[in-house]
């Protein structure tokens, strides 16, 4: 087992709004290990991006971490003050966003933006910083890096911009790179290039990646460990093999059934019934119960605990509780 860099323990993040408190993240636990890729998959509103923003403490107002710990090498990021955060963000953990069009500043050149990031975190003089910027652009496979440094973001294509974002994120050699839907805005052939690049850089620089996406295909290709999220909770957590070949939560099963597969011949898709949950009106029991065709009485009343399937696999679903002898599964047996 490799070294654990980041530990998220019982994290709760919520957004107080006029119409009530939106509890975007509801008590999630996970670890990030050195050199591994952790995938977080879920639909829109499942809290996967908010989790990432909570780790970096870049939540939009009025979002607050209300409970829990984020331990980075044993230090609690939740307690960091502004100065500590500045040293943490970018240098220790950095992030690339979904939309490469809006995450670069349109009025500064690529050089300006790269050099700024490098000089903020490393004691380099402007000339050294520029050299580092050039080196980074070469590393991420930007052609004609000397020319690109002088250009503005609008002069670059989407794939190029995402490469510049990756260069910026990696310039200070962070321990963890958070990639928030890094390829969703890109075409498949460009997506393939970027994913390949990320894996290559991960192996070269020995960092860990937290990959956030809704695309199960991307997850399958990239990730060692996977977290499936629904309504701010972890449904299931396990190695890629466990999640794809031995899903134990009804939501994960539903997700895997609802993607059309490219195989010869056609079969009807089995979608998940109903619509996504309203975070303002969270049910008392399991959040997925209203869409689950296997829902039992206990599901409606008590949210399931994390149930250990095996060493590499945890699922929060009452279906995995073995009936206690003498009682049926429907019995309110709380195990």
């Amino acid at each position, binding site marked *: 087992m490799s070294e654990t860099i980041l530990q998220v323990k019982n994290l709760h993040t919520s957004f107080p709004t006029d119409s009530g408190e939106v509890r975007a993240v509801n008590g999630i636990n996970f670890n990030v290990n050195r050199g591994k890729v952790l995938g977080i998959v879920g*639909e*829109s509103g499942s809290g996967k991006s908010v989790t990432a923003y909570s780790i970096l403490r870049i939540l939009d107002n009025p979002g607050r971490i209300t409970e829990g710990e984020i331990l980075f090498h044993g230090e609690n990021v939740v307690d960091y003050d502004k100065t500590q955060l500045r040293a943490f963000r970018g240098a220790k953990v950095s992030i690339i966003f979904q939309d490469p069009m809006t995450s670069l500043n349109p009025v500064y050149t690529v050089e300006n933006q790269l050099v700024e990031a490098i000089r903020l975190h490393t004691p380099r003089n402007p000339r050294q910083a520029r050299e580092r910027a050039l080196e980074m652009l070469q590393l991420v496979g930007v052609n004609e890096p000397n020319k690109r440094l002088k250009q503005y973001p609008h002069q670059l*294509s989407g*794939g*190029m911009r995402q490469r510049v974002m990756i260069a910026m994120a990696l310039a200070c050699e962070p321990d963890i790179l958070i990639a928030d839907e890094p390829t969703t805005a890109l*075409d*498949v*052939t*460009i*997506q*393939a*290039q970027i*994913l*390949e690049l990320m894996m290559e850089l991960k192996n070269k620089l020995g960092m860990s990646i937290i990959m956030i996406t*809704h*695309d*199960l*295909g*991307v*997850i*399958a*290709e990239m990730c060692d460990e996977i977290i499936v999220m629904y309504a701010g909770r972890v449904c299931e957590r396990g190695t*890629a*093999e466990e999640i*794809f070949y031995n899903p134990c939560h009804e939501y994960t099963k*539903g*997700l*895997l*059934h*609802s*993607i*059309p*597969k*490219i195989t*010869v*011949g*056609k079969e*009807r*898709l*089995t*979608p*998940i*019934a109903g*619509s*996504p949950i309203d975070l303002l009106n969270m049910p008392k029991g399991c959040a997925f119960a209203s869409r689950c065709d296997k829902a039992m009485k206990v599901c409606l009343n008590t949210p399931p605990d994390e149930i250990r399937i095996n060493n590499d696999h945890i699922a929060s679903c009452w279906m995995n509780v073995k009936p206690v002898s003498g009682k049926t599964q429907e019995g309110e047996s709380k195990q």
Partner: protein
Amino acid sequence: MSEHLLEVKDLKQHFPIKMGLFKTRMLKAVDGVSFTIDKGETLGLVGESGCGKTTVGRSILRLYTPTTGTVRYNGELITDKNIQGFRKEIQAVFQDPYSSLNPRMTVGDIVGEPLDIHKLYATPAERKAKIDELLTLVGLNSDHSRRYAHEFSGGQRQRIGIARALAVTPKFIVCDEPVSALDVSIQAQIINTFDELQQKLGLAYLFIAHDLHVVHHMSKRIAVMYLGKIVETASADDIISWPVHPYTQSLISAIPIPDPKKARARRRIVLEGEVPSPLNMPQGCAFRTRCRYAVDKCAQETPKLEMLGEGVGHEAACWNPQG
């Protein structure tokens, strides 16, 4: 001549782009596209952003007047003058269920508007009955007709869009990325709705999308577009099993497979470089700048879409087809 429901022949759609004060250049969004669609059939149109697939759909709907080329529906030529009559036959469902519904209209009025325009009812009661029937058909219920679009989720809005398209009982629907804005679990619901409606009403679809998984699931035949041209057409299964155009091959190999073992076992063809600007297209074959099999001829002559063999129904536009 056999009768196709829709016949598109050598369709070209060029847009003038002003480059400075006096200079204009032509952006060839669609540059000579031909295909046919039969009754009750689905043709999938795939390609990356900017390849012209949406423009093809819009030209068929006459939202643009084509530069050259013809579109025939049931053998009849569609022109700017007679398009109004065809609107009852050809309808559209758009990508963004948020911007394609009028926020100030109730769902009943959105679905009822085509009925009003084409005067498809005699009494208000009949109008209401028709609206209710349409909403039930797409999996909503009649109570929904008094609500506004913002009260619905993305998937439900897309259902409203489909109900509106079906109001005039069309035979052909242009579906322009109808599921790409939706979450996977909802996407599957809408795909199934499209399937069911096709079986029930005998609809033909032109299904435009960038997601080959979805297109393959929906379509009988698939056409792959690159920079304004169709580079390969074949049955849906042939396209994924025996792609011959290097672009189709790399497109298929670029799709992430949702299966860790298979995904890690395969070898991927990663394309070098990016799509050239349609304002500045390479001479000859447009794909040759990224193609690893390019030969001298590719730079000189533009390949035409040709049958690979007699009666196989598999066409490709390539001087050096693979596989």
